């Protein structure tokens, strides 16, 4: 069907055409207090189309795959492209190297489809049950188990026609502890490509319980500047923010403070950041991106020096660079984007901190790529003489990404690449923590 639609678009007057077909199955179960809340099972298909003529672009997509609807979409897309304006950077990628064989990447688990719904439901039930056995846990937000399998087919008018399959599964649990008016909550999860990548119900339950109860009886603290440590999940959002600042789209739109800084030192020597679409067996891995450009390993920052912006074909042409295989359909997306780990364990980093705040959870959206400003609500654990001493709530942390990258004093060894955007525990020399 993908190749047929490319053909149709060319017949309708397009000079170039690209068609994506995605087909998938979804299973998800939410259980709470030992009962099923929601059980979702379905299959879906959708098609995405891009046409270009005279450097003018139009897009269309549909989940209605009837012939008449698709024919109409193709015809109208070509008509709309005529009304757009020529853009010298528009167009499909030049034909290039062949992408790797998907079967070498370990991104599809053939066994996932044979896991019975009953097993999935029981896994979620068991995870919650184990957590509720801990008497400090006073309520459950439920446990969820999700599995997905999908096939991506990409065809274009330059003769590209390839497909690959991916699977993904996750197990998560949200808990509360404390009474109605002094309640705390947190969650934990495990995710991966293969069913056997999932952590055991015991492990997920244990971590979710620990993360929740450690927040009980928080104190407020005075507004101050002090050393701040990020747990891996926190470094993960910081990397997500860094990604949005080095995305080629943001760079050509001048919507990032790093737009004119390539080649400059924007962090200290501990900061090496990579984007790698070829690491086997990870959720961020794929043979080629949404435009058919082979995925690769890109060094984004090397010991603090900003080396490379991540691009799709359009951003790369805008910036006079090469695509890095980061097209995600609507623009630029990460593959496995991570901060390279250091040698010390998180325990060692905490033990070497005389006084500081370990950030364990954040709330809100206060990230501004245009300025690099960070300002978020946070929950933390007070660190005193190398030991965790009490939880802290109702604080915000604020700073600037460039200053943070220049002020990283320690990078841990505890990197979990399954998060997609990831990084280990880090210690930042000083940030503003607002409290009372």
């Amino acid at each position, binding site marked *: 069907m993908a190749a047929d639609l490319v053909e149709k678009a060319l017949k309708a007057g397009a000079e170039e055409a690209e068609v994506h077909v995605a087909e998938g199955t979804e299973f998800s179960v939410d259980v709470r207090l030992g009962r099923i809340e929601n*059980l979702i099972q379905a299959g879906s298909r959708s098609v995405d189309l891009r046409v270009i003529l005279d450097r003018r672009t*139009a897009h269309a997509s549909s989940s209605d795959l009837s012939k008449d609807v698709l024919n109409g979409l193709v015809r109208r897309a070509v008509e709309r492209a005529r009304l757009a304006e020529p853009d010298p950077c528009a167009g499909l990628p030049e034909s290039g190297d062949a992408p790797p064989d998907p079967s070498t990447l370990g991104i599809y688990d053939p066994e996932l489809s044979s896991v019975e719904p009953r097993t999935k439901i029981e896994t979620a039930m068991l995870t919650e049950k184990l957590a509720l056995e801990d008497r400090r846990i006073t*309520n459950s937000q439920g446990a969820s188990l999700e599995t997905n399998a999908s096939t991506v087919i990409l065809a274009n008018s330059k003769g590209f026609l390839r497909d690959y399959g991916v699977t993904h599964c996750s197990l998560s649990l949200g808990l509360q502890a404390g009474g109605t008016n002094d309640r705390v909550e947190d969650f934990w999860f495990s995710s991966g490509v293969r069913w056997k990548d999932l952590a055991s119900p015991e492990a997920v339950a244990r971590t979710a319980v620990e993360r929740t109860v450690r927040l009980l009886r928080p104190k407020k603290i005075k507004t101050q500047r002090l050393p701040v440590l990020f747990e891996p999940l926190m470094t993960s959002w910081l990397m997500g923010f860094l990604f949005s600042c080095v995305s080629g789209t943001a760079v050509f739109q001048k919507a990032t403070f790093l737009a004119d800084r390539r080649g400059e030192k924007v962090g200290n020597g501990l900061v090496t950041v990579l984007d790698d679409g070829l690491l086997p067996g990870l959720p961020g891995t794929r043979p080629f991106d949404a435009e058919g450009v082979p995925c690769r390993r890109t060094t984004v920052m090397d010991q603090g020096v900003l080396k490379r912006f991540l691009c799709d074909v359009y951003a790369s042409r805008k910036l006079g660079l090469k695509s890095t295989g980061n097209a995600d359909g609507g623009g630029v997306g990460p593959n496995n984007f991570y901060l390279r780990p250091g040698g010390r364990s998180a325990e060692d980093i905490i033990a070497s901190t005389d006084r500081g705040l370990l950030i364990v959870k954040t*709330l809100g959206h206060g990230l501004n790529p*245009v300025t690099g400003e960070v*300002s978020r609500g946070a929950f933390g654990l007070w660190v005193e003489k190398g030991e965790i001493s009490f939880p802290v709530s109702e604080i915000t942390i604020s700073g600037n990404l460039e200053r943070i990258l220049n002020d990283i004093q320690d990078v841990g060894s505890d990197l979990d690449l399954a998060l997609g955007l990831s990084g280990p525990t880090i210690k930042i020399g000083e940030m503003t923590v607002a409290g009372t």
Partner: protein
Amino acid sequence: MDENLFGLKKSDLEQALNLGLSKGGEFSELFVERRAHTSLLMEDDIIKDTAENVVLGLGVRVIRDGQTGYAYTSDLSEEAVHAAASTAASVAAGGAPRKPFPLKETIPVREPDPLRIPSHAAPLEVKIRLVRETYDAARHFDPAVNKVKVSLSDCLQNVLIANSEGLLVEDRRPMLRLGCLVLAEKGGRRESGFSGGGGRVGLEALSEAMSPAAIAADAAREAADLLEARDAPAGEMPVVLAAGHSGVFIHEAVGHLLEADFVRKKTSVFWDKLGRRVGSGEVTIFDDPTLPSFRGSYRVDDEGTVPSKTPLVEKGVLTGLLQDRISARILRRPLTGHGRRQDFTCPPLPRMSNIFVDRGEFDPEDIIRSVKKGLYAERFLGGQVEDSGKFTFTVSSGRLIENGRLTRRVKHVTLIGSNLDILRKMTMVGSDLAFGLPTGTCSKDGQDVPVTDGCPTLKVSSMTVGGSLED
């Protein structure tokens, strides 16, 4: 019933609903939708891209004893619909089959709001003109403006909802959104501003306060003003929320935790507080899906319930919740028409529509005058809340209040608090109720739905402001 819309006859629907009940389900429901969405984007001085998206699909929900089975398909053939209904039914495997009531067509009580110039039917050239007008106005507003991005999108959603209690209802929901993003640069500093217009309206609404020129000026002014703004202070202080945009504060701090799923699960801090005082006597909060043409408005919710203006907090007392069917049944409370879903792939959840703090009696200027040293919060980036009541929201721009007067501009600061505490501290409510930009979207459990928030000028006597001490 318009039989051409989905090619489904009443008997097809009844059959699918029956199949949903075939394994002992108590309730079955079909949600069928077709959405046609078009959008265009102007950037770098050219109309760069246009898109058309079609969404067609059917979701089947079967409930038994509070447990939901859900399946969906984008293939509306009898075979595919039956397969989905059987899959959804299996959540209730083991019981005896039940019969649905015969379907009876319901007409939404209100007429659709008439659109004089429906955007989905307007020629692309007309929309290109509006986008270009907005773009040019923003580009020339201030010499510091160096980048503009304007997008216009419209959507027409047709839905059909049928359930085993005999309900059959159709609705037609238009949506329009014009958004303008401006980046400004001066002396090596960059800032951005955003504004927009729209709602469940036609292109005729893009005039006066929502004209392309007004939207462009609003976005460009925000970016230019921010170039002059400095970092905010940090610590506890009084915060005055500007009328209109500050509605997002109520959305986060109060609205989410009054969504009845969090109450029936007892995870919300409000679960045991219905009928009890939760805030200052100045505070009255409603959620009203029936406001004409608002972005969050609808004539029937996504479970087919006709909504009503729902009181949530009245003079500080918690009096209502936002209900969907499952929650209302478990809590034995009346339906309010707040069961909403992102699309046919999602089971409904209790959600806000247009939430607002009702007008109070204070003159907005007196509210500012009452503060010796504090923060005046004007524009927002959004926020987040957890069930425990802890919430944050981020102010994109504001002013300092010094000795009762607005002084220097401050930028990008996050406020944090716990909702019961903040509700008690809402000591002054202004008489100037206004609503925020008609471009808002709310996310919950991975589902996005359009919403609007509103509020008059409002004083919170003390909260934590997360500025930075440096500068």
